[in-house]
């Protein structure tokens, strides 16, 4: 890969641009010199996903934003030009649900709506490196499936030195898991309802409080701990005020403090302001999830276990994009006939009319290599009846829509953020490599400089 950098640019201008960027995006990337000027990829096949595929096209990026896409684009003199001849450019992939990327995720405490993954995201986690290597540019880091209310998810870009550089959206969603942690589904659900009811009640109380004057309220109900809680929530308008309130009560209500922060998230979820990932392990969880969504007005993102396909019809009625299990095709034994049956999830959901996006399996725990790559997932889906365009959309634009990021990423359109993947050849071709990954207009991965990959492919070179 050659970078034909036009050197007839005033250095000061470069520096200024650089500062601008740093100020605007909080950016402190590894290669500020590259990110500074406009960047153009010329002569490549551009799969825009949102529109037609452009042959021999050019993408012009300025300030991390796609400035122009098309065949006849004037490339400014100062632009860094990447020769895209024979290459394919696609929008960066989006991982809509992954518990990787955290160091020490919570797997123990069952009800922790107050937790945020942001506190645990590790920018140097191998997950992010793998993401860049495989063309994933945005990822939703979500608490795992082992806890009932696992906390708050965040959407991040997969490149950055510090967590703050990476974050696209903090507290992007709340995570619920219907897989029983201990005991039965009945107690799991009653516990979940209890929390949701508490949030609902708190909201109602807040409405009432809003009507009455605050001081009156406080003096009347000073005795009751629980009412104090409500009071604190009532003062949501001012954060400092709330903090003071908390301090006052600290000694009296220690446990309540944790719940308070959690309650905020729960309240947002119940109001439908914060989306809720609902992990369904088996088909009966889907019915429960649908019921919860109806009862509490949640804004759901269904994350499905393998067995959930039995509820495909029910999911189709929900008219929402779902996130499939990483294992798309598997064998299971019919308990009655003792016959082995092949379950092809993409085919089942496609036929039922359920739009879906993929998950990749945790690379640390994978037993097969394929399911840890989005490429493989897309190819599997195509094998079982998905069109190629739909499969590409399921890697890019569909998850972007699911995460409400489609105004920023997910396709190659003017005005969107320049999160791109440059491939050495046709996508889904076995011989194709990710040649370059661009996040926010910055080249964050180049195959030519991927020492680990080189070592992997030619160990003798060492």
């Amino acid at each position, binding site marked *: 890969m050659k970078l034909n950098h036009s050197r007839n640019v005033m250095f000061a201008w470069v520096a200024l641009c650089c500062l601008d960027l740093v100020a605007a995006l909080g950016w402190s990337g590894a290669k500020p010199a590259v990110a500074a000027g406009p960047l153009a990829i010329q002569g490549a096949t551009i799969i825009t996903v949102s529109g037609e595929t452009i042959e021999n096209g050019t993408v012009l990026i300025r300030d991390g934003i796609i400035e122009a896409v098309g065949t006849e684009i004037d490339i400014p003199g100062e632009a860094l030009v990447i020769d895209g001849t024979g290459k394919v450019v696609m929008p960066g992939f989006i991982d809509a649900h992954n518990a990787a990327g955290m160091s020490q995720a919570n797997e123990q405490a069952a009800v922790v709506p107050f937790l945020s993954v942001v506190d645990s995201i590790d920018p140097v986690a191998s997950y992010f490196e793998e993401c860049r290597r495989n063309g994933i540019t945005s990822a939703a880091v979500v608490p795992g499936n082992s806890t009932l209310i696992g906390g708050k998810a965040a959407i991040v870009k997969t490149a950055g030195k510090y967590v703050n550089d990476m974050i696209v959206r903090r507290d992007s969603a709340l995570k619920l898991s219907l897989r029983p942690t201990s005991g*039965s589904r*009945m*107690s799991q*659900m009653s516990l979940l309802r*209890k929390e949701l009811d508490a949030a609902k009640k708190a909201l109602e109380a807040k409405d009432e409080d809003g009507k009455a004057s605050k001081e009156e309220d406080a003096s009347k109900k000073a005795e009751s701990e629980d009412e104090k809680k409500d009071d604190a929530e009532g003062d949501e308008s001012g954060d400092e005020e709330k903090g003071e309130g908390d301090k006052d009560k600290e000694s009296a209500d220690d*446990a309540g403090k944790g719940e308070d922060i959690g309650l905020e998230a729960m309240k947002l979820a119940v109001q439908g302001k914060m989306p809720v990932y609902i992990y369904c392990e088996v088909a009966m969880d889907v019915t429960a999830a649908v019921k919860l969504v109806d009862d509490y007005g949640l804004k759901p993102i269904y994350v499905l276990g393998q067995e959930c396909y039995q*509820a495909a019809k029910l999911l189709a009625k929900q008219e929402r994009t779902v996130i499939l299990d990483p294992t798309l095709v598997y064998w299971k034994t019919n308990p009655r006939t003792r016959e082995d049956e092949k379950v092809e999830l993409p085919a089942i959901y496609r036929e039922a009319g359920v739009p879906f996006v993929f998950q990749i399996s945790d690379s640390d725990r994978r037993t097969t290599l394929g399911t840890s790559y989005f490429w493989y997932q897309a190819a599997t889906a195509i094998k079982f009846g998905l069109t190629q365009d739909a499969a590409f959309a399921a890697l890019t634009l569909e998850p972007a829509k699911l995460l409400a990021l489609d105004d920023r990423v997910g396709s190659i359109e003017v005005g969107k953020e320049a999160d791109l993947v440059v491939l050495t050849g046709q996508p889904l071709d076995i011989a194709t490599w990710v040649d370059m990954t661009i996040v926010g207009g910055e080249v964050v991965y180049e195959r030519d400089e991927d020492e680990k990959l080189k070592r992997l492919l030619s160990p003798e070179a060492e």
Partner: protein
Amino acid sequence: MSVTAESKTLSHRGISDWLAALLLCAVLATPGFGQTVDAYFASAIWTGDGEPIQDGVLLVREGVIVAVGRQDQIEIPPRANRHDLGSATLIPGLVIAQTNIVESTRAEDYAISPEVRAVDGFDPFGDYQSLLAAGITTVQVSPGGNRLMSGVGAVVKLAGEDPTKQILAEVESLRITLTREGLSPPTVYEPPVGAVSVERPVEPTKPQLGTSLAQAIVGLEALLAEATEADSPDDIRLQSLAQIIKAKLVSRWTAGSNAEVRAALHLAQQFNIPWIVVDPLEVDLLVAKKVWESELARGVILNPELRPGRIANPIVPREGAKVEMPVWKRARSLIDAGAADRMALRASTDEDLKTLLFTASVLGRGGLTPAEILRTITSSPARILGVANRVGSLKPDADADFVVLSGAPFEPGTKVLATFTDGRSVFDIKSKNESDVKNEQATVIHAAKIYTADGVLETSSVAVVGGKIAGLGTDVSLPQGAKVRDFGNAVIIPGMIDCSTSLGLGGSLSETTTFSTKLGPLLARDDDQVALGRQGGVTTALLSSTRLPSPVLAFKLTDSPRPLKDPVALRFEIKGNLTATESSLERTLKTGKAYADSWNKYDAEYAEYKKQLAKYEVEKAQYDAAMKAAADKKAAEAKKPEAEKKEQETAKEKEKDENEKKDVSESDKEADKTEPGKPATEKASGDKTEAAKTEAKPDDKDTNKPDQPKLVEPKKPTEPNKPSSSSSLEAYRDLFAKKIVAMVDVSDVKAVDLAVKLFRKDFGLKTAIVAGEAAARRAKLLAENEVFVVVGPALVGTDDEGELVNYAAELSIARVPIGFQSNASTGVSELPAAISYAVYEGLGSSDALQGLTAGTAKFLGLESVGAIEVGKDADLVVLSGSPLLLSTEVLAVMIDGEWVYEKESN
């Protein structure tokens, strides 16, 4: 709907289409068009409420019952799909008033958990086929019963297209268990979230409410009172409870004794909540009419206390103790008290749900009619559960949940043929049977007469399972999923045996064979000749080469002919010059006998050898064990000196000696291992003495003398030498062991005499002669010598004076056992007809039948055929009338449990 269709057609179609659309709209206006109506005709419909409707019809549209009634009273829409269910009976899908069909029945820790909902534990995608197959379509699911207040139940259907619509009542009743099961809650431990500190200490475990009935009642009363009074309580449990009381949700009390029932009724009345009493053992309080006049009385659910396949040991009542009323008496008295429509029966456990249609009939002991019993598992539970408008009875506007039974409910032998929910078939016994393995298919055949080994059975049945006769009698046990064939006035006889045919090889065999030739593997599959030949009722045929001598094979006339015994006989021939034949045959038989004898001798010797060998092995094992123990001891002693270095020097000389001995003994032992036959040597004596010293086994007591090599290795017995083996003579071994038969074709009277002398008298073989007239003349001789005669195909001839002679009859009169042969291929089918002439001319039909079936089978040693008897092969011939009459026709033939010929289908 019609409006939108119209507007759409107007805007999008041409004029001609528009006209068509107008027509369509006209039709659409008539109610019910476009929704297909299914009409199910059945001989009886039990609606679940009231008496059955004879010759009823059930109309179903869109999963909902439109009408139900007598066929002559209900107007059936012309376009209805008609389903004639024949003699079947329709009942409503069964409704079970209480089950625990939830994903996990693990009890909650908390004694009071009204917030738990059973509906969350119901898996609509679960496999409920076994319950649907038992006719159960709707159940109450309950959140476990091991806690005082375990949660809220729900009412669900076990099948449906939309899982969310399977839930009939999400919140049905609050379960409270006052019996012992609910009164032993564990203590609970609630660890604090986060780190433990002085301000947040680890709290000790807390005891819970309700370790005795009195405590539980007081506690419940307080709790209910708090929940009633509290405006909006903060505690989640109180909150749920308050909602339940406010919503007047039903309370479901598991209460056995009078005290428990009293407590339940008292609390329910005090807080004005409707109640259901579950599993009452004492009903004294419930049989008061006043109780059932109350609006709060939702119902009572009885436990049949009966688990098919299990026997409980009733407790011997103490003197003076009150004896509990049996469940049927309780049911009766509850009905008398006015609870007829509010009394339901549940299954003792979830496992017993499948048998509820049977267990429910126990209420018949209390004088309940079948209709009343059916009510306790259909409409009454539906009423108790508050879903009577939808399920539990067959009535207009109810869900089309019904069960097709093969006969009246609770009658023995009545099976669930199909189950429907919302008009959709969710279980069908046919589709189930098709998937079963073919030869496991059970068939039950009814006929007017069955010729069994013990005589003729009138109006009886034969049950056939897996190709064998499994049952026989007037009231045969019905195998699972059996297909029933009723032949009405027909007669069933065993499949017949033809003693000589040229069937099975696709043509007759005339080549020279040796007695070592196995004909079984040569049998041709799907032979058309066999298919034709068996139509007369012959199911087993014998086959040999026409060039004698030849081995004889017995085989079944199935599509893939099955060798039954190969060989079943050796067939000889006496013809031509009798003197020459005699000497050559004698020589042959002598050779054969000598061969057989040599092997018999060897067999005897070998058996003795085996006995000796077994004895030897036991002795050898004992000997080896002793040797090993000695060696171990030796090794241990050798190690000891190394550890104790100080004593080493003093013991050196001794050790040297011992080591030498040890070396010798070890090498000796090696030799023993490789050559177990080698006798023990003196060299091992040193070891053995020590072994004897250390071993305290009683067996070794006599060897316990020092320096006495008593333990001698046992001698292996020698195997006897095998006699030389010859494949051509091998068959003689069975012949002389009388396992197989010598069949001798004879041409005249002299030859008969010779055959009897040679085969029977001289060599003592099991002999059958194949002859007609000649045998008849020597009937007495043959009878005396117990010689079997194969007659046919000609059974009746004329003597020198031109008089008719019925060979078969003559032989039978002389008590000579006979069999029949056709010597034909497809003509095998004519054999019974040929015999019918002999019968016409005086042969007793039972003698003839004996010769065609059991007699011949016994003589030939074909144990599995020849009689209709439990355990024998299911080779059956269904006749239109008495056997061996020319007027009688073969209706069907079964071989090995499969119908190979049916007159109807031809």
